[in-house]
């Protein structure tokens, strides 16, 4: 009897206390200006280096305290969209470079053209900082670059007596030789999000296509080629569900002899399969085409409505300075987007990174365009429709083109 009464009163107490238990954020040391920094470098991987850098910044001076918060990429994008209205934006935010334009157009980021022009030592590669401009104004600076290459398992290639493929026919022949009951020739990510578009672009551009011309020969040829690899059983049907991290798992566990992926996976492979004997080269080119690569990476900007514009800028210039940029980028598997960091020199005795960094030259950028997310959706949807056999190639591509035409790009 008493027990029940006690239970009820405890319940009452707990219910009234619940609202008080809401906040759990770390408090900043007294007297410092606190700024928040949102990023999507996952905590167990790249994120720990980001946290280290932030900690170093916090210890290097006693005026600004940066509070770094991790949110998964999709979640972060949601928060930006909603944050414009609700006003709940951080002071500094990271953004995937193809999306930067779209968020700038929505008003997520602060125009920093003047700050940038009045600050010395901001030397970035043109191709990288290009994604930060929207209608002639600057909304951020590049954080790190990456690109895609072909990873190959040396032992499996040797065992099958296959040379490292350089073009599509060689790649297909290699896949045929490498595919067994337990191993697929190639792994890619063809998932229904930005990663899918990102991974498709090298094929598309090598065949002479472009994301704004999805009914052209390049698109048809590249889709036919990739779908052919699936149909022949060289590539798992599951690629439509795989993220790039999943592709890495397949490769690291030996279930795929080759994969398309980027430099941020070196760390993962070293963890998952420390003894894996593998190499990296450019994504094979179309038989009558050129090598093509796609520029990936992140930018960081100051979010609209911040009360600490100068402090935020101080932090950004610190973390993207030549020294820090070179440092962080090499830890998290990115290439510094600064023109005063010599990447080839940096990776002189690192064959994997220098091979992959070579693909940075002439890498195609995604956009910049304020409608990139919609455009990208049209591209990866077409790819998914084709790979699952829901639509034939001409229909899927025509539908994608219709969507893209409707976006009103000039």
């Amino acid at each position: 009897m008493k027990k029940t009464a006690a239970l009820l009163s405890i319940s009452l107490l707990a219910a009234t206390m619940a609202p008080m238990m809401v906040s759990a954020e770390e408090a900043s040391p007294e007297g410092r200006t606190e700024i928040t920094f949102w990023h999507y470098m996952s905590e167990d991987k790249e994120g720990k280096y980001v946290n280290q850098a932030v900690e170093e910044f916090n210890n290097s001076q006693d005026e600004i305290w940066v509070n770094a918060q991790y949110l998964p990429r999709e979640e972060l994008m949601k928060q930006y969209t909603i944050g414009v209205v609700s006003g709940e934006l951080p002071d500094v935010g990271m953004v995937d470079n193809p999306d930067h334009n779209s968020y700038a157009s929505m008003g997520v980021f602060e125009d920093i053209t003047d700050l940038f022009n009045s600050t010395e030592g901001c030397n970035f590669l043109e191709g990288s900082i290009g994604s930060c401009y929207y209608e002639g104004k600057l909304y951020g600076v590049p954080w790190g670059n990456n690109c895609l290459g072909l990873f190959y398992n040396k032992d499996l290639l040797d065992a099958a007596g296959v040379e490292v493929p350089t073009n599509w026919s060689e790649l297909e022949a290699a896949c045929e030789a490498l595919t067994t009951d337990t191993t697929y020739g190639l792994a890619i990510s063809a998932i229904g999000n930005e990663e899918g578009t990102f991974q498709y672009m090298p094929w598309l551009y090598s065949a002479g296509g472009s994301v704004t011309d999805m009914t052209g020969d390049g698109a048809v040829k590249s889709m036919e080629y990739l779908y052919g690899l699936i149909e022949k059983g060289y590539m798992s049907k599951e690629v439509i569900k795989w993220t790039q991290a999943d592709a890495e798992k397949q490769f690291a566990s030996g279930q795929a002899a080759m994969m398309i992926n980027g430099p941020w996976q070196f760390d993962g492979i070293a963890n998952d399969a420390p003894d894996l004997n593998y190499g990296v080269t450019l994504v094979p080119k179309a038989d009558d085409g050129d090598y093509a690569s796609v520029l990936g990476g992140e930018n960081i900007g100051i979010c609209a409505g911040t009360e600490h514009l100068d402090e935020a800028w101080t932090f950004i210039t610190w973390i993207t300075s030549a020294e820090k940029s070179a440092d962080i980028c090499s830890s998290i598997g990115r290439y510094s987007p600064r023109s005063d960091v010599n990447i080839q020199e940096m990776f002189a005795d690192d064959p994997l990174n220098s091979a992959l960094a070579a693909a940075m030259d002439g890498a195609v950028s995604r956009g910049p365009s304020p409608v990139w997310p919609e455009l990208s959706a049209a591209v990866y949807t077409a790819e998914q429709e084709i790979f699952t056999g829901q639509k034939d190639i001409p229909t899927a591509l025509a539908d994608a083109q219709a969507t893209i035409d409707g976006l009103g790009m000039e």
Partner: protein
Amino acid sequence: MRKIKKDTVLGYCFILPAVIYMLVFIGYPIIYNWLISMQDVTAKTLGSPVRDFIGLDNFITIFGDATFRASLVHTFVYTIGCLVFQFLFGFIFALFFTKKFSLAKPIRGFIVISWMLPVTVTALVFKFMYADNGIINTILLNLHLIKEPLGWLLDGKMAMVGLIIANSWVGIPFNMLLLTTGLNEIPAEIYEASSIDGANKIQQLFRLTIPLLKQTILSALVLGFVLTFKVFDLVYVMTGGGPVDSTEVLSTYSYKLSFQMFHFGEGAAVANVLFVCLLAVALVYLHVSSSEE
């Protein structure tokens, strides 16, 4: 006289807090949802105090949207598929476990656990088992029922079948329990009498059991319909509506419109279509269960 009045007041004191709570957190949102579905609510207009009233524009938009029409069809296909599957197995299980043998009751009880588990986990474990080289494909291959691995969640139709199986794993015990309750209410003498009349087991099933269980069967089906029709977690976690919208259902599409594309108005309109369908069935159910008494 006074006592009656005092009793009434007391009664309301007991009842009303819960009723008010439900009206605040469910009733009000339902009305608000109709309002939103007739307004132009997107990420851009979300914060502004005045939003344009656009009448039925959102409904016109969604009915013109191929994905919405497909998701309406998928919802019905899914619901009916699940109903058939889980009801049949539920019925077989119920008949089986009402037989008298040792451990019948505890085993029947244990099977019910699948109903209690978080659907999120159910969805994940089935997703895992459906993988290309997952356990289900391995078993089927070893039994030589298939020649190459089935792409369970990689093909639109297979993904729907996969969802129906996973949902039935949750639904079968529920149907079994409802039907068991009904079976236990049938007096044993009736069967004895009919076996004296020379009816065999199958005749008994169709001539006695099923007619006597009519009410229970009806409520199991209607209730099953309601519970299945509103599916969200399972589809969202297992297929995310994919591959390419082929398993998109009303609730997941409404969620996507609202919280991934931020077309809150359209998301609310889709939710209202779901509401109308459910309410219709719920009223049928209430009618059925009140005529039962």
